[in-house]
């Protein structure tokens, strides 16, 4: 994390309204109607889940920091607001995003090593030619107008942990929720501190049943809790500042009210995340893999 968020390029150039984002994607679709009908792809979020899993696989053997994976995910999102995914080889783009993000988050990996690993995972889609990745890095930087610093919600979480205070289980769950928000459009829609608050609320409202680990996702923990419904009622209580929830939650609500954080935005984020967990149930790795593979092969995008 560097520089000042309020003056950052992230806030000035990479924050969209929902309508604007929908507009951009609609335009991309209009420009390439043929590909769209020929190569249907799953829901954006399912695609994100797939990409994220590939990134994690790629990062696994290189002792990468979580934050580099997060930055790579944001790069992918930014890149695909300007380019139609059906015109690209998603495997090359995600490998490049990973490579650049590692440099950006100060855990650089050698380009040959990254290409080698990527080839090991997806031999059909990544050529051994290192220059390809170099070229793609270049395109990625240009498409992002060389605005490369990404502000993440993790640091806000760490800072608020003592102030609120949060238990280590709650921090771990909130951390996983932050990991999960990269699977949605939220990083393009809301500033990082709003996301962090959302993650904290979720973690406090849906008390972690068992401690989760920091690297993982909160999906398994949360989708069960959501089904029993009690957490949802508490979420409803959040918008009502006179809420009668348990004291722990009341305290949080009070703190929020004083914090001047945009509560509406926080609630919107919460809903987005909960709907992610619903969509998640339909996720099939095999399906994503086949659809992307067919698209890349048929269109010769890997050449």
């Amino acid at each position, binding site marked *: *994390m*560097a*520089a*000042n*968020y*309020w*003056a*950052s*390029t992230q*806030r*000035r*150039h*990479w*924050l*969209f*309204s929902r309508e*604007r984002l929908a507009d951009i994607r609609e*335009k*991309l679709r209009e*420009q390439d109607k043929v590909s769209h009908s020929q190569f249907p792809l799953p829901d954006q979020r399912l695609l994100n889940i797939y990409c994220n899993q590939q990134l994690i696989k790629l990062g696994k053997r290189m002792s990468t920091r979580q934050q580099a994976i997060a930055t790579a995910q944001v790069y992918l999102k930014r890149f695909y*607001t*300007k*380019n139609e995914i059906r015109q690209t080889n998603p495997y090359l783009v995600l490998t490049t995003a990973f*490579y*650049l993000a590692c*440099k950006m988050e*100060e*855990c*650089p*990996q*050698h*380009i040959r090593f990254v290409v080698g690993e990527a080839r090991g995972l997806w031999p059909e889609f990544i050529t051994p030619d*290192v*220059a390809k*990745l*170099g*070229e793609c*890095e*270049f395109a990625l*930087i*240009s498409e992002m*107008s*060389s605005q*490369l*610093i990404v*502000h993440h919600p993790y*640091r*806000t979480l760490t*800072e608020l942990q003592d102030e609120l205070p949060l238990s280590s289980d709650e921090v771990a769950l909130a951390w996983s929720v932050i990991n999960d928000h990269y699977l949605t459009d939220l990083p393009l829609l*809301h*500033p*990082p*501190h*709003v996301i962090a*608050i959302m993650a904290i609320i979720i973690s406090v409202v849906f008390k972690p049943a068992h401690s989760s680990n920091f690297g993982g996702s909160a999906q398994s923990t949360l989708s069960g809790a959501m089904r029993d419904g009690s957490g949802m009622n508490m979420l409803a209580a959040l918008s009502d500042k006179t809420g009668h929830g348990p004291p722990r939650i009341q305290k949080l609500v009070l703190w929020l009210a*004083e*914090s*001047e*954080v*945009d509560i509406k935005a926080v609630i919107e984020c919460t809903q987005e995340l909960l709907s992610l967990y619903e969509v998640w149930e339909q996720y099939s790795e095999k399906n994503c893999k086949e659809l992307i593979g067919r698209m890349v092969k048929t269109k010769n995008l890997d050449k």
Partner: protein
Amino acid sequence: MAASPFASRSPSVAVASPNTLRLRATAAQDSAGGVLASKSVSNTDQELTEQLNDDVRHKYIKDKKLGEGTYAVVFLGHLRDDPSSFVAIKKVKVNAEYKDGLTMDAIREVKYLQELSHPNIIALHDVFSSKDQNLSLVLEFLPRGDLEMLIKDGDIQYGVADVKAWMGMLARGVWFCHENFVLHRDIKPNNLLIASDGEVKLADFGLARSFADPYLNMTHQVITRWYRPPELLYGARQYSGAVDVWSMGMVFAELLLRVPFVAGNTDLDQLSKICEAFGTPTEENWPGVTQLPNYIPTDRTQLVPVQGRDFFLRQFPTAGPVGADLMMSMCALDPRKRHTALQVLRHNWWMIDPQPTRNEDLPRKSGAKKMGEDMGRRGGEIDDGPFKNAARQLDFGAKK
């Protein structure tokens, strides 16, 4: 900022007022949190991206070559529409043999200059790419050389009021970096370039990085040797803005003495010269120093006591007692006892007479050397002088 996402990249880039700094991204309770005018955020049109890159490139005309270094070639350029508005175009060299991706130097420079906007930091106007996959940075043109040239030029006379003006500008630039969680890590006189109006600007962010998250290691192979603080020479992997403050102290000393104050031939020699000059670090004056990875115990008989105020006053008589006190606070061996950039700015020295010279009255070098040579170098290199410092390597295998 205007509605176009590229508005901020025009040469007339607005300078952020320092008080906007109080707003931090991490301050969730900040009142500005609610006001995110999403409408003004982006009007980019995807099909325009390439066009935009070309537009940016065509905005400038490349003139003569100013200089060349290991890492970049620097050209003088000007705006197509306005031949009198000069810029420096820094074209990053790409290894033609096999493309290894962009170097960390180039990435860092773009990364930080895109976000930092301050009168004492070189401005990045634009970035564009060319067909041969070269990244070009369009930077503010700073025609009046650098502080090193002024220091070395025996024909130029300057006094403590001038030093105060230069140091003030340096301290503000460094403070701004630190306030934005950026460590510069290569502060030295020839990275301090001078604008046509006399303003000193911190340049070369090829070694800069963000403050690490707690407990994460960083490399200690940064900062040109003569300006490198003892904790880095001892191999500390976790450090703070105090490293830049030490470098500032060394620049301050060099401005007053007109020679580098502690100029070691090797890293070891640098350490022993620091000990001779300022005192030997011990557990008493610097708790924890013996635990640093490359700590070397000193023989008891060789111990130099930590220097007090009178030493600094003797060494730097022109600075006066208050100036000597400031110098001492910047050269504390223990980084925790060293002043922060903010404390430096709050020091009494700035308030007392003589007042800093006004920019227009600052001494200037005639027939200025080119900006290009400074900017083409890789971070950490010293290009001349009897002690040719080898450039430290920031290899990709190095951890964080």
